[in-house]
């Protein structure tokens, strides 16, 4: 019954998406200020659709919670013996479930905007909801026609076949939902951009409506990427935190586009400039989300994450991708000329700096995109290549370094026009820090160029982030400005972590007999014993390693090599020792023939700053949202107060005739 309710809800939601699309399109046909009788259904349809999609998703979670083995998806991906939390998170740890989550979030955000957004003209709103409905419809079709999550088995399975043990991790509970919510939040930005373009309402009001959605999606993407990076770091046991894996790139590309969009929408809201550029970025950001979904979901890439390998589904998403992106860019090309140009600005102004960095971000996006797609292109010619850090690191750094330099001084410039001479003290200070740090570090040792530059830039950016506050009364600085300061400081912190990890990591790989000791960095580690242990659905060998820093009190680390029995698979569980200035990372390997155990240890100074920085960036985004929404609430209150007063005056003024 549960599965049937879910399926029915999904079909109904798809039907409502059609209604929303048609009704929204009718709004476009009506003249301004005049309500089309058919246009009134778009908002209720969007809200109902959100409820139904939510219901469908809840039903699937329910089926997983009670391990309903007559549902094919549950039987294929769950197991009655699995811990409850992983039964629940397993709902979206597979292709169908994660697509249902995708659509659910899409419907939810459509419902939210239909329910709460009252600032836009009704025609623009109608067009936006029509586009949102059109996007949703494609994905409902995809779910219902090619990957029905509620499909029943003719005969219920006796037992489920389990879940990939790599995915039995708390990281899975948060990682995909946040990323998806981020991807899909960009769909609202896309719909709004299309709506504004269709009705030629590209103006600051539109930008202020779009901004919270872009900020929200960007915060979620930032958080999702940060969490995903940490998850890969400790779960894969390779000691790396970013592999330029296609699936990681699939989340990085929308983030880069969203970062550019975020800044350009800020210019549009504040200064009414960069109109067409903002629309273009809105289309681009969602295109990258769709491309990310395509890359992950179609199985075209070799990747740890590509657990859905099904070319037919890939073709379906590719068609959707072509339809939406192609359609959007066609409308853009046809309509962009009709959008009046916004306000102008000189090159040395805050807008100028933002535009420069927008272009740099787009260039990095191009680098990542080409590197990710290149292996697919060459494979068509039967040449197999893989593209890794030797390509991505230098090629993206070429654009990232100028971007960081401009980012340091951009917020210090004034809007519209400014003289670089006005900020020469700050520029000289930052240049001195940059050169000083690089000189100091290279004095103490030989390091690769990129980590060295990273250390210098991190120091300069860390100081630069706070310079906009100079000479201001801190209690009167707007919350949104604090958000910017924090996000920019987060970039510096993260960059510092990456550069330190790259420059100062120490590694020790050795075969150690029980009782034997080895050294890595300041740490001495002793292998005390290796024992078998067991968990709810795995067995493992576990090493007890006593680690002491400079002869201090020892701490016990217990890395494991785990074997899961359903499905049969082995994983390596690293053990981490976190100190304020870095992390010690331990992995146990195989036993050599003579009884010694392979132990691999890394001391990674300040590696944790990478993720602290990511969290700071996300937090900065949250502060910006809070600040903007508060300002908006105040404005709305002022407007409604004004309206009341006017109404009062009018009520009084009913008798002006008498006064005369």
């Amino acid at each position, binding site marked *: 019954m549960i599965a049937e309710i879910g399926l029915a809800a999904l079909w109904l939601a798809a039907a409502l998406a059609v209604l929303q699309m048609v009704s929204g399109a009718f709004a476009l046909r009506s003249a301004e200020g005049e309500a089309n009788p058919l246009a009134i259904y778009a908002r209720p349809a969007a809200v109902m659709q959100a409820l139904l999609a939510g219901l469908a998703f809840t039903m699937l979670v329910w089926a997983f919670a009670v391990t309903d083995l007559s549902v094919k998806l549950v039987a294929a991906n769950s197991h009655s013996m699995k811990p409850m939390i992983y039964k629940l998170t397993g709902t979206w740890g597979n292709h169908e479930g994660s697509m249902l989550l995708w659509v659910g979030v899409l419907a939810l955000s459509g419902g939210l905007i239909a329910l709460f957004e009252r600032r836009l003209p009704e025609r623009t709103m109608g067009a936006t909801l029509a586009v949102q409905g059109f996007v949703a419809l494609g994905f409902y079709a995809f779910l219902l026609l090619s990957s029905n999550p509620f499909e029943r088995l003719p005969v219920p399975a006796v037992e489920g076949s389990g879940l*990939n*043990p*790599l995915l039995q991790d708390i990281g899975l509970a948060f990682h995909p939902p946040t990323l998806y919510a981020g991807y899909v939040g960009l769909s609202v930005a896309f719909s709004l951009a299309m709506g504004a373009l269709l009705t030629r309402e590209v103006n600051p009001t539109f930008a202020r409506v779009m901004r919270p959605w872009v900020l929200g999606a960007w915060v979620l993407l930032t958080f999702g990427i940060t969490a995903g990076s940490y998850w890969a770091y400790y779960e894969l*046991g390779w000691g790396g935190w970013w592999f330029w894996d296609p699936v990681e790139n699939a989340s990085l590309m929308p983030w880069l586009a969203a970062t550019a969009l975020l800044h350009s929408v800020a210019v549009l809201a504040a200064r009414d400039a960069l109109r*067409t*550029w903002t629309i273009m970025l809105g289309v681009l950001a969602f295109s990258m989300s769709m491309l990310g979904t395509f890359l992950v979901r179609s199985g075209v*890439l*070799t990747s*740890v994450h590509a*657990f859905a*390998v099904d070319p037919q589904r890939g073709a379906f998403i590719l068609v959707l991708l072509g339809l939406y992106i192609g359609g959007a860019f066609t409308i853009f090309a046809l309509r962009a000329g009709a959008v009046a*140009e916004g306000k*102008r600005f000189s090159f040395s102004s805050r807008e100028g700096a933002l*535009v420069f960095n927008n*272009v*740099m971000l*787009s*260039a*990095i996006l*191009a*680098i990542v995109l*080409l*590197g990710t797609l*290149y*292996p697919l292109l*060459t494979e068509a010619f039967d*040449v*197999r*290549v*893989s*593209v*890794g850090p*030797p*390509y991505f690191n*230098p*090629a993206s750094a*070429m*654009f990232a370094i100028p971007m960081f330099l401009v980012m340091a001084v951009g917020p210090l410039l004034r809007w519209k026009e400014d003289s670089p001479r006005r900020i020469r003290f700050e520029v000289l200070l930052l240049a001195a820090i940059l050169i000083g740090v690089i000189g100091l570090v290279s004095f103490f040792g030989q390091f690769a160029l990129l980590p060295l530059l990273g250390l210098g830039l991190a120091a300069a950016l860390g100081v630069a982030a706070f310079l906009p506050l100079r000479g201001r009364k801190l209690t009167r600085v707007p919350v949104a400005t604090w958000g910017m300061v924090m996000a920019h400081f987060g970039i510096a912190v993260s960059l510092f972590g990456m550069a330190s990890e790259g420059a100062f990591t120490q590694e020790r*790989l*050795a*075969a150690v007999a029980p009782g034997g000791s080895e050294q890595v960095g300041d740490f001495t580690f002793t292998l005390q014993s290796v024992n078998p242990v067991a968990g709810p659905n795995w067995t493992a060998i576990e090493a007890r390693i006593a680690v002491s820093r400079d002869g201090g009190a020892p701490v016990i680390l217990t890395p494991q*090599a785990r*074997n899961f*029995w359903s*499905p*049969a*698979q*082995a*994983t*390596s569980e690293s053990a981490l020792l976190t100190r304020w200035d870095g992390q010690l990372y331990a*992995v*146990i*390997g*195989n036993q*050599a*023939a*003579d009884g*010694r155990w*392979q132990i*691999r240890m890394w001391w990674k100074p300040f590696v944790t700053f990478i993720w602290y920085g990511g969290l700071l960036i996300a937090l900065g985004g949250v502060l910006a949202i809070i600040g903007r929404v508060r300002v908006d609430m105040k404005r709305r209150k002022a407007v409604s107060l004004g309206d009341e007063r006017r109404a009062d005056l009018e009520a009084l003024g009913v008798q002006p005739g008498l006064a005369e």
Partner: protein
Amino acid sequence: MKAKHQRLVLIIAALIAIIGAGLIAAWTLRNQANYFYLPEQMAATPPAAGQAVRLGGMVQPGSLATEADGVTVNFMVTGNTEDAIPVRYSGILPDLFVEGSGVVAEGSLGANGVFMATNLLAKHDENYVPKELEGMGTAQAAKMAADTTVGLTQ
């Protein structure tokens, strides 16, 4: 500057940057893309010593030997023909790495003809085969994919 001009200048600047990015990408990709070799290809046309490449094939049964330090292994990788490439690797072997399993080694060919691997990618779970191994002929791929887990579940 006239309004039209500013827009034009912006568009041109953006285009130059994006095209520049494209050119840099194309140039770097040509130099830095990591080409994939089968053992027979590597034997016939070896890559330049020190160039980063990937070697994919099957770990020849009976060839896996661990050195005295306990962490360096030597083994032979074979493909569709008799050619076998010696591989040397220091590190923890992937979870499902055994003789007879499929492997992709990242690294470079040394001057002495030994492939120095910096990283080994092995079959990861039941559903994952390194993609490069897929085109190796069904019999061979099946052989590689066949229950490599058995050897590890001690």
